[in-house]
């Protein structure tokens, strides 16, 4: 019925793709150490690995990635410099994450854990910060939701799960929770597609969501939250301009109207 293993497999594949990207970002960053764009890319890759890893039960991997993500957050906020040491350590950490992914598929444990501890100890020396343990807790104190690069802006997001989204083992409410970590989220669920109880397929998600997210995060960071369900949902992320924000209000009030009409007409 539920094909969680298949979905876990998809996570592993995507995670490896993200790691390839991360590696090229790190190598480019080595040649171009003042490039904030590359720093942001590395940060987002680590953030995604951490978040999705935690979602699929790779707790050690998530905790480990989080420490590295924090280091890149420091770089992003200009509290830590890009040095050869940091690049080398990050590349070692990247190999470590790969090893942890392989372990998740069925490799052996103790040597991987020891190597991870060693990397974290060196990272600690570099950043002068204690290691962070919690894997799935909300943002660390150094990174409040809106502390990212640009100014805060409103994003209009529409998330409509496809027929097979639930069957892949995804929990849409967890995705929304992750989205909430990026900023302030106003959210409205649309129940309009829910059929009568008798016709309702219990394993399919009929609810869709209209949201406005106020965040300084770039569009990619928002899209990354949905990266593992991109093929099984409809997703639009658009900058909300002032008039659009107003029409979003209108849209949601007409949605309310539609729902309440349904209520009365359903009698």
């Amino acid at each position, binding site marked *: 019925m539920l094909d969680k293993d298949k979905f876990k497999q998809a996570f592993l594949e995507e995670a490896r793709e993200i790691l390839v990207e991360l590696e090229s970002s790190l190598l480019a960053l080595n040649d171009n150490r003042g490039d904030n764009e590359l720093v942001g890319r590395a940060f987002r890759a680590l953030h995604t690995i951490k978040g999705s890893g935690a979602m699929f039960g790779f707790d050690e991997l998530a905790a480990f990635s989080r420490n590295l993500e924090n280091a890149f957050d420091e770089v992003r906020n200009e509290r830590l410099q890009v040095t050869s040491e940091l690049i080398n350590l990050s590349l070692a950490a990247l190999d470590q994450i790969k090893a942890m992914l392989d372990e998740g598929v069925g490799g052996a444990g103790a040597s991987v854990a020891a190597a991870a501890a060693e990397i974290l100890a060196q990272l600690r020396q570099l950043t002068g910060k204690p290691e962070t343990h919690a894997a799935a807790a909300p943002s660390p104190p150094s990174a409040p939701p809106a502390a990212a690069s640009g100014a805060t802006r409103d994003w209009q997001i529409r998330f409509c799960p496809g027929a097979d989204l*639930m069957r892949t083992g995804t929990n849409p*409410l967890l995705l929304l929770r992750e989205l909430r970590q990026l900023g302030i989220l106003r*959210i409205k*669920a649309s*129940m309009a597609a*829910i*059929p009568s*109880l008798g016709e309702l397929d219990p*394993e399919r998600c009929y609810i869709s969501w209209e949201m406005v997210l106020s965040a300084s995060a770039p569009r990619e960071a928002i899209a990354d939250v949905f990266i593992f369900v991109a093929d099984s949902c409809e997703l639009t992320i658009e900058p909300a301009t002032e008039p659009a924000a107003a029409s979003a209000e209108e849209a949601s009030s007409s949605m309310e109207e539609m729902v309440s009409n349904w*209520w009365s007409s359903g009698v």
Partner: protein
Amino acid sequence: MIRLDGEINIGSAAELKKLLLQALASGRELRVDLEHATELDVTAWQLLWAAEREARGSSRGFTLAGRVPEEISAAVVDAGFETFPAGLDRR
């Protein structure tokens, strides 16, 4: 009355649907007790929503029996359910 205990998710969705259909067929008011529930996923919420709509549609009514745990109320707000479930204390 339907009492939901612990985590209600896609694994129990088919069973919950059956219970709700039976409860509606009984012709009595639909009462759902969430007091001992810890988490409901979207499959559970949409079943309750459809059942609430049908219970009201046939004027049998839908009531939340017992106290609703704070985590559940918070999850309802986080999920963007604005008027559902009716009678929920949203703080």
